[in-house]
């Protein structure tokens, strides 16, 4: 799967994002890393130019409740509602529900195992193969955790 790994907003720590990018590569995925401090507009444009099937967002700054909905909205507005969004970093439990209802399909906090993320991507792939939605539009209620 072609995946964009992005760091939205003013958050300068990307060790986590790089570890994930690397392990997804080792899992056979094609990963495009954006680098730090990208705006939602830049991120949705990168996803478009790369024609990525999935977008991984890593954020530690606490601004996820503004950035993530904006990115999901931009994806929908620009005809990329089929793109799957998953999230990692510091996302407090109380925000999980609102993230998922914005279209996010999985949230991986500290302590997550990289092989779990690979399993999640495998399941997403088999959903695509069977014609089930994985993108930010589907109101099918599927999410990983």
């Amino acid at each position, binding site marked *: 799967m072609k995946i964009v790994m992005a760091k939205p907003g003013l958050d300068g720590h990307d060790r986590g994002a790089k570890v994930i*990018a*690397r392990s*997804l*590569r*080792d*899992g*056979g*995925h*094609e*990963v*495009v*890393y*954006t*680098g730090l401090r*990208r705006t939602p507009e*830049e991120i949705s*444009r*990168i996803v*478009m*130019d*790369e*024609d990525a099937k999935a977008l991984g967002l890593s954020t530690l700054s606490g601004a996820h409740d503004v950035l993530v909905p904006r990115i999901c909205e931009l994806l929908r507005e*620009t*005809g*990329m509602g089929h793109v799957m969004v998953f999230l990692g970093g510091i996302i407090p439990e109380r925000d999980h529900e609102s993230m998922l209802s914005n279209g996010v399909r999985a949230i991986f906090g500290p302590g997550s195992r990289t092989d779990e993320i690979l399993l999640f991507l495998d399941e997403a792939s088999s959903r695509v193969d069977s014609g089930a939605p994985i993108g930010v539009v589907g109101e099918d209620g599927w999410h990983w955790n």
Partner: protein
Amino acid sequence: MALELIDQEVLLRSAFNGNRRELSRLLTHLEKGMKLNLPENAPPRKSTVLGITGPPGVGKSTLIGRIINYWKERNQNVAVLAIDPSSPRSGGALLGDRVRMDSADSGDLVFVRSLSTGGHPGGISSSLISMIDLLSYCGWENIVIETVGSGQSEIKIVAFADKILLVDGPDRGDIIQAEKAGIIELADIVVINKSDLPGSTNAAESIRSSLSFGDVKSSPEVILVSAQKNEGIEEMMNLVENCHTPDWRERIKLKERLISLWDSRLLSSPEFNRIIGDLQTGSISLDDALDELAR
């Protein structure tokens, strides 16, 4: 197949009219090996293709970031195809060129696509030509292809460019490797990046002097720049715009392109694996195998 063609026609029309999303989808199809069918009345290719190669870590992506800005300031658009190797073990790839092209994600004048060399039994070169043709057809005036120049396969990719920049850093000695691999014969301009660091003037001098053993008139220009400090970029771009590729270099380029496409056809032949099997069991000789593949 028929469905695919109709699909392509619709996407193509939309991409031609400036729909970025459809352009991007078409590129994916081409990457996967679909043949590009441009309309018969399509104008000949107008864009200039600039190839940028050099060893890892010399600052190619940072330099491309500056080149993007140079064209943007002149209100010209630019599409970049950044090619990275994929891991031979997992088949996956980590494409990080965008990280250093900070000018890449803004505005309608810039389009950047990362490509990995994996997943193409015959190499990336045949889909690369279609991608360049498509971008040109859709109105991208400047096209940049970036490869890590460390071996034969990368030379073959960069040989599809009209003009070639070979980038190196101070005190690396990698240029010797480039000479071995034959990249330096293809280069129209040799760029020594990181001119703000000590040793860069020496590096440029030693390359100039090693080039001077050959035919001075047709050897590539050597120029010092600092992509990070944005120094020397205008001069470099002036050289790019005014440099003339001598006939002998044009010939080498054509030769590399031909070899590359030949390889690609060979490797994607459906008979290829069977013939290797036959060779292994000893049922045919190498000569027989060649004859059969050439048929």
